[in-house]
């Protein structure tokens, strides 16, 4: 694959862009990098208040870990979801905001998207590290599971990269995409079991007079399997279901291939259209 070879050739540029992404993110703020930890923790606090204390959503007991804590249960899914969310919202704009560079320098344009995904992946790993410390403090011996968590992060990164490649290049031609994605991500958030366990989603439900297998339909969303796998490993301390994993991996690989294909087709005119 010539795209892969080109990207390997440009690996130093990718790492430099990734560093630029990380270094400039919190420049000139007093707390700097701490923000990347404060943000998810503050969000988790808010959701705990609303959903656990007010709406009384119960976190299930970890099986076999035996842990029961809504905030931790939430964080296990919230961090991977926020990663998907922020990577997509950043990369949808990345080609437009680097327009000047695209007009003045020649290198594979997918580097812009790739470096956003890599920078965000690194941030996610740090956040998950903090979560692991919290879990350890609560008595969840999560250490032997961490390699598997990294595998999940890798799969999700591929998934996100595929979506981000398409979104970024289409946004150059249709600038409205950015706003559509913001709305779509809100739907995604509530249609993924982040705030609640999937057991609250009814198996069957009568909608417009027809009996629909709601939970099976709900499960079509590949992010459902993604966050469930994270939860299985971090919260429950068990292997995720093989079927779910295969389904997620299938989506990730397919999106990656389609993503690069779409990007490659639209890359040629970028310097003129951006």
């Amino acid at each position: 694959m010539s795209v892969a070879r080109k990207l390997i050739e440009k690996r130093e540029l990718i790492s430099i862009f990734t560093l630029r992404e990380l270094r400039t993110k919190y420049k000139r703020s007093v707390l700097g990098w701490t923000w990347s930890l404060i943000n998810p923790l503050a969000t988790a606090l808010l959701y705990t208040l609303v959903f656990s204390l007010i709406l009384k959503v119960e976190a299930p007991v970890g099986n076999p870990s035996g842990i029961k804590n809504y905030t931790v249960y939430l964080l296990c899914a919230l961090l991977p979801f926020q990663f998907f969310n922020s990577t997509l919202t950043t990369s949808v704009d990345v080609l437009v905001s680097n327009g000047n560079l695209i007009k003045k320098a020649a290198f594979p344009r997918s580097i812009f998207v790739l470096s956003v995904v890599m920078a965000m992946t690194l941030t996610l790993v740090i956040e998950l590290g903090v979560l692991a410390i919290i879990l350890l403090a609560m008595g969840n011996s999560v250490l032997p599971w961490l390699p598997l968590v990294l595998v999940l992060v890798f799969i999700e990164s591929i998934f996100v990269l595929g979506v981000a490649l398409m979104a970024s290049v289409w946004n150059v031609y249709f600038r409205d995409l950015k706003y559509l994605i913001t709305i779509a991500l809100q739907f995604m958030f509530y249609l993924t079991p982040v705030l609640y366990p999937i057991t609250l989603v009814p198996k069957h439900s009568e909608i417009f007079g027809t009996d629909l297998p709601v939970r099976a339909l709900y499960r079509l969303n590949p992010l459902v399997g993604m966050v469930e796998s994270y939860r299985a490993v971090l919260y429950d301390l068990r292997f995720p279901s093989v079927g779910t994993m295969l389904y997620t991996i299938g989506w990730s690989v397919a999106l990656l291939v389609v993503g690069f294909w779409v990007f490659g087709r639209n890359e040629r005119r970028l310097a003129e259209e951006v």
Partner: protein
Amino acid sequence: MSIAISVDDVSKSYRKYDERNQSLKAAVLRGRRARYTEFAALSEVSLEIPAGSIFGLIGDNGSGKSTLLKCIAGILTPEKGRITVAGSMAALLELGAGFHPELSGRENVFLNAAILGMTRQETKLRFDEIVHFSGLEEFIDAPVRTYSSGMYVRLGFAVAVHTDPDILLLDEILAVGDEDFQRKCMEKISDVHGSGKTIVIVSHAISTVARLCENAVLLEHGCISNRGPAQDVVDFYLSEAHEVVADEDNLGTRWGSGEARIEAVTICGDSAIPVNSIRSGAPITFRFACSSSTRVDHPVIGIAISSIDGVQIGGVNLNATGPILKYLNGTASVELVIDDLPLVPGAYLLTATLVDQHLARTYDFRDKFLRFDVIPDSTGGDRSFETGPLSLGGIWRLVD
């Protein structure tokens, strides 16, 4: 001789959108993407650039010279044809492309060098040299947003010339910075050329192309209309009638009360054909087309010539000759003839003014609005015995 760049039958067209509405709503309503018409920027261009030479691409605005350079650089993809490049290549279309304002000069050197194709190891090795060349040792750890524009350009150029590619593509970047910086630029380019590298230059500054390049092509409406030794191509370009009022890039500012206006200034050489380049020491005529909405008595036209960095070299107004223009009501044409233009080859800016008899009321002031080039005289290219904008001339004699 081996070929560094071979352009074979290349065509490139742009899409000109009838309405610049790239919204999804518009697309959905119309059932497709925005309407556009194709506009051919390059049509079936073929050329070969020999390795180790300095090659010039010249032409009017919109002739396709920059498009061709961007196709060679790989920034644009041509619809048709093939471009083969032998060796590593760096395109300097903008100094400091990709500089991030929040990062330090040091970090930006690595960033910019990577964009230009250098590895981290190579950059590390040349880092001190780059910083020394830029003269920014003290500021290298400060964020680039605190730099002046001059410092920015110096750092950008320092990185660019140290990338050491086999082929260097330059687009108009020689037209920036002060004179000292331009001289440094030229020296470095001679150095690079001396070490056997290929250089391709796109420039408005005809004089630069005539002076630096060995070969050149002239592009007109996306086609090559002349090719050969640079001096011949430049001569051909100058001999053609150019339906342009020099190179009016909307430079400078304009103010004034507006009762009378300078509509246009055209520059002519020996013939009556308007040109935008003139030979050093040759006759030059500046023709002013003026107009007024009401009767204006004793208007005074003035002219000033500045070097490209904005320093005024000289100026003169109509009062030097006397009251030849009693009043202006409607339109009038006035010309200033200078027998031998005492300017050294280079780019210059023209200021034109229209004021009242007592030089108190300004009707129209067009500050440095027109750019023109002075090229070497017909005796040949070497003017290295001259410096500064003013051609002193004179004869040297040995005194016993």
